[in-house]
């Protein structure tokens, strides 16, 4: 009898130690089931495509096994551009620098597939944002954007996702906004989408003009969000309502 009680006590202690919750924890059982079983997850259509693309193009330089852990470290500083880049942008840079192909445009399905494959290789690993000092000013800019009021409704990210997380906005639960599962298959989109697409949704929701895809603001915001979610496990490809 002792062991289960002890294990339960540990679970409770762990729950108290970290109040952060993945959006997964608060989804309905049926949506959770879609994410738990890969043979039910529609994002597998993109993931398998990304896998094929990786094994036909990227293997010239990269081993698939070496991709494990890569997604935990992004956004990372690119010394050539002298600014941070997201995982998706890094893949696109590889494409333009070394494959001499044209860059993919925002939300390109092939691009999303490849990013899903690379991020999926780190599934279950904790997010580990690099301590690189060159990232610090950008991360601070991201924090400022997170608390900056925006749009006609004059809301900041923090007002919903820090102060009112767990509450409801109309019928929907307000999540804590930890970007652990991107690219995600969102049921509302009926498709796969990036973190920037999701952030643009939120901005349109508060009636602000969304930042452009690939803008410096989004990279800064992502840097802050990853820091905020540091240590949480990567779920890619996640399913969200």
């Amino acid at each position, binding site marked *: 009898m002792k062991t289960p009680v002890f294990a339960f006590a540990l679970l409770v202690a762990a729950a108290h130690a970290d109040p952060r919750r993945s959006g997964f924890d608060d989804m309905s059982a049926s949506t959770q089931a879609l994410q738990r079983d890969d*043979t*039910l997850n*529609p994002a*597998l*259509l*993109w993931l398998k495509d990304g896998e094929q693309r990786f094994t036909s193009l990227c293997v010239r330089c990269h081993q698939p096994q070496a991709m494990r852990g890569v997604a935990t470290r992004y956004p990372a500083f690119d010394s050539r551009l002298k600014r941070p880049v997201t995982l998706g942008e890094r893949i696109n840079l590889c494409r333009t620098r070394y494959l001499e192909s044209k860059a993919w445009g925002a939300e390109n399905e092939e691009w999303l597939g490849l990013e899903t494959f690379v991020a999926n290789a780190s599934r279950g690993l904790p997010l580990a944002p690099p301590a690189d000092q060159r990232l610090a000013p950008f991360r601070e800019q991201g924090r400022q954007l997170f608390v900056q009021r925006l749009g006609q409704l004059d809301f900041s990210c923090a007002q919903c996702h820090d102060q009112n997380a767990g509450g409801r906005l109309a019928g929907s639960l307000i999540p804590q906004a930890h970007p652990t599962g991107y690219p995600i298959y969102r049921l509302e989109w*009926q*498709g796969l989408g990036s973190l920037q697409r999701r952030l643009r949704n939120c901005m349109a929701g508060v009636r602000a003009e969304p930042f452009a895809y690939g803008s410096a603001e989004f990279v800064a915001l992502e840097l802050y969000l990853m820091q905020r979610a540091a240590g949480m496990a990567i779920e890619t490809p996640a399913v969200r309502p």
Partner: protein
Amino acid sequence: MARALIFAPKTAARGDVIEIRTLIAHPMESGQRSDGQGGLVARDILRKLECRYDGVLVFSAELFAAIAANPLVSFNTVATASGTISITWSGDNGFAQTESVMLTVS
């Protein structure tokens, strides 16, 4: 994007009930949505799914407009002999696709 995926066991014992799951990339545009210009987005859905096991039809389904994009269909059949499980989807605008997997029965 991979257009269609079939999840089925590769091997089974004769008489086993096996589960087959399929996912296909398709918008399943219902024909009910506004196109923002006063009209409707034209319907574009899958109409039919057929599964043939060793050439014999073992499962078929008709699909309608109220089904989500990228539909998942799951069904069971009995493993009788080694052979090909072949699934054919057909739909609006001449959509037709066939994917198959091998099943070895011992």
